[in-house]
Structure formats: C-alpha cells, structure tokens
C-alpha cells in the first residue's frame, strides 16, 4: 500500500484513516495491525523522499516501541504497559473521529446566513433620549484642573502678588500710629482695617508683632502681656516707668 502523506494533517490523521480502513467499529481497532500499516506507509514514504517531518518519525518510533510491548506474552508487566498505551491511542483516535463527525453534524445543519435567514431589514423601534446630561464630580475636577493648568502654562510668569501684610508694612504703620498713643493699647488695633480672610488677619498680626518686637528692641515702644494668650499691649517707649513690664512677651 502506498499512501501519500501530503493529504494528511499529521500522524494521527493518517492513523485514523488507516483505522477507518479496517472497516471495523472504532471500538475494536486492532492497534497491532494499525502499527504495522503505519510503519509500512512511513517506510514507503522514506523510499521516495529522505526527509520526513519529525512528528511522523517520532510517531513511528513510538509505535515501534508499542509494537514490541504488544508482542510480549500476556501477564508480563511490560505487556500491560503496552496494553494501556494502546488503549490511550485508540481513545485518542476515537475522540478525533468523534470531533470529525461532530463537525460534519454541525456542517449538515441549516446554518443561519447560509440556508436560513433572519429579518434583513429590522426596524429600529428604539428612541434615544439624549436630553439628560452625564455629569460627575471627577469630570468637573478634571475640567477645572485642565483649564487651570493650561491657563497657568500660557500665562507669563510673574511673581505672585503678595496679599499679606509684611513686617515692613507693619513697621511703617506702627511707627506712624504709636506716637499718638497716650497709654497701653492692644496690638490688634494696629492692624490694617481692610483685611479680608482670617489667614490675612493672622499674617498681619504676626507681622505686627514682629514689628513691635523690633521696635521694642530699639526702645521705641514697650510691649506687655497680662497672661498667656492674652492680648498683647503696646505703648510708647519714651516713658521711664518700667515697673509693670513683664518678661514674658
């Protein structure tokens, strides 16, 4: 028997074809005769061309091994090994055959789009309502950041305008106002009146305190605080009365 190997998808395909050639129920395949047929085909093919894809030869080698086991007398341990290997091969062939038949079964069914058809012109009975808006906070924040980042990048750099009351501002204002003081006055009275935010107020207060400390060091004013966290008091520094000065400013 001479079979061309080109028509087969692989050793298993050939084996299945040979098994079907036995015209037997696949449940009763004679593996031994299958092995002989396969080896004969391979031998024939090698006479025609020397190079054969490796998997054909691997299968041939494995089948030769299998044959040697199958020829051993029953009861032998190696013979049982052969039996079970033969059964696995037979099972693989049955599975492949079953899948071939399943493919044929599927192929024989009337197929949608080939033999039977669904409606070619379906009606669209769906109305789309796009009146609602899809809005969410993350989207809003992304938009805000995008706008700010882009605007920030485009804007020419200029130092931020300082909105805080600086120590220098405080020195000027304190020097201007303290001369008119007859007596102790709260430091907070020296803050500018137009400060908006609490942050600006706190900044101005600390600037004014720093200015006050600076002026007190030079003796231009005096500072006192009656108790911890109490109001800080200020008066002109040109009086001699030092008795009530507290150290804890």
């Amino acid at each position, binding site marked *: 028997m001479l079979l061309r190997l080109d028509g087969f998808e692989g050793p298993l395909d050939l084996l299945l074809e040979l098994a079907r050639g036995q015209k037997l129920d696949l449940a009763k395949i004679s593996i031994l005769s299958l092995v002989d047929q396969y080896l004969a085909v391979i031998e024939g093919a090698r006479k025609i061309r020397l190079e054969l894809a490796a998997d054909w030869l691997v299968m041939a080698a494995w089948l030769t091994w299998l044959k040697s086991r199958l020829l051993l007398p029953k009861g032998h341990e190696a013979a049982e090994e052969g039996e079970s290997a033969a059964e696995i091969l037979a099972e693989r062939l049955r599975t492949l055959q079953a899948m071939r038949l399943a493919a044929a079964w599927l192929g024989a069914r009337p197929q949608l789009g080939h033999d039977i*058809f669904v409606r070619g012109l379906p009606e669209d009975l769906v109305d789309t309502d*796009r009146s609602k808006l899809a*809005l969410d906070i993350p989207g809003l*924040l992304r*938009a805000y950041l*995008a706008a*700010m980042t882009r*605007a920030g990048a485009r804007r020419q750099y200029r130092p931020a305008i300082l909105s805080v009351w*600086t120590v220098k501002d405080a020195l000027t204002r304190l020097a201007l106002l303290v001369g008119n003081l007859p007596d102790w006055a709260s430091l907070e009275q020296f803050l500018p009146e*137009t400060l908006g935010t609490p942050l600006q107020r706190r900044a101005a207060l600390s600037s004014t305190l720093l200015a006050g400390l600076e002026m007190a060091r030079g003796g231009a004013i005096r500072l006192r605080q009656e108790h911890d966290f109490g109001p800080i008091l200020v008066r002109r520094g040109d009086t001699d009365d030092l008795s009530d000065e507290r150290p804890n400013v």
Partner: protein
Amino acid sequence: MSDTDRESLFRLAEALIFAATTPVTTRQLTQLLPDGADADAVLAQLRERYATRGVELVEVGGGWQFRTAPDLAPKLRRVVQVPRRLPRVAMETLAIIAYHQPVTRPEIEELRGASLGQGTLDQLLEAGLVAPRGRKETPGRPTLWGTTPAFLSQFGLQQLRDLPRREDLLVEPTLLTPQPDPAPPPAAAEPAPES
C-alpha cells in the same frame, strides 16, 4: 394552479421579503418565482393576508417590505436614555464658575486663558446649571455668574462646600490663578504695600 402551488408562491415571496436587506421589487420577486407566476398578484394577496396582523406588508420606495403595524409600534417603542456629555469648553467653564462664583465672563476668560463663546454660556444656561447673580459694580457692570440648585443636584451635592477644596486640587494655587478672590485685595484702601 393548485392550492399547494399557490401556497408555495406565497411562502417564497414571504421568505424573500423577510430576508432581503432592501425593499423587494416586483422584478426581484419575478426572478425568484417560477416562470409564468404573477408577482403583482402574489404581492397583492400577500398584503391582504397580512392586513390584520402584527406585521404588515407595505410598499415603500418602489419595493415591498414588512413593517410593524402602525397601531402596535408605539407599544413596542422603547426609549433609551443616553445622557450626553458637555463639551470640554463648557465643562471647564462650569468648573470655573463653580469654584470662583460669583464671577464675570471676562474673569472666566482670564482664568481659562481663552475667550469664551456665547454658545458655551448658553449651553450651561439652557441646562440650568448656571444663572446670573447680579452685576459687578465695576465699569460696564458685567453680569456675575453662579451655579444653580440644579447644578448641585446634577452632581449629587448637598451644598457648594461639598466640592473638593481648590487648595486640595491645585499644588500651587497662587501660581496658577491671579487672585480672582471676590474680596478686595488688602491694599485696596491702604497705601500700596510693597511686594
């Protein structure tokens, strides 16, 4: 012609019109039917058969097709809500108004670093997300804009304060924004402090 033969013509016509992706012309049907069959007559009788059914045979644009009976269409019609997104410019404008309100249009333009088309503001007005909040007492008395209660409910907010703080969003807010703070700058009434 026997009843069976006539019936087979109806079956063919029915199947063809059903499966075709365009309305079926009399000519196309004639090609499918056996020689000598009267396609017009088949169509006329088929239309009659379907006249009281849930699906009708109608002639449109020179061909025939099946259509849902007009009285049933409303029952089958489904409305699918596909919320639309605001265009990017509108979203950015909305965000700026939300964070800087009340804010004038020139201020928005200054903040975005780009001019603002009337269409964008109209979109936001139409959606009820922003509304005028009086006028700014500066030359020209420009309209001040702010967000509406509808804005809060659209975003699922109880109050404006529920928006993440600007300080938490921007690493260096002062670098990115020219003080749009509605409060007058501290030096306004004072001799200008040096910087």
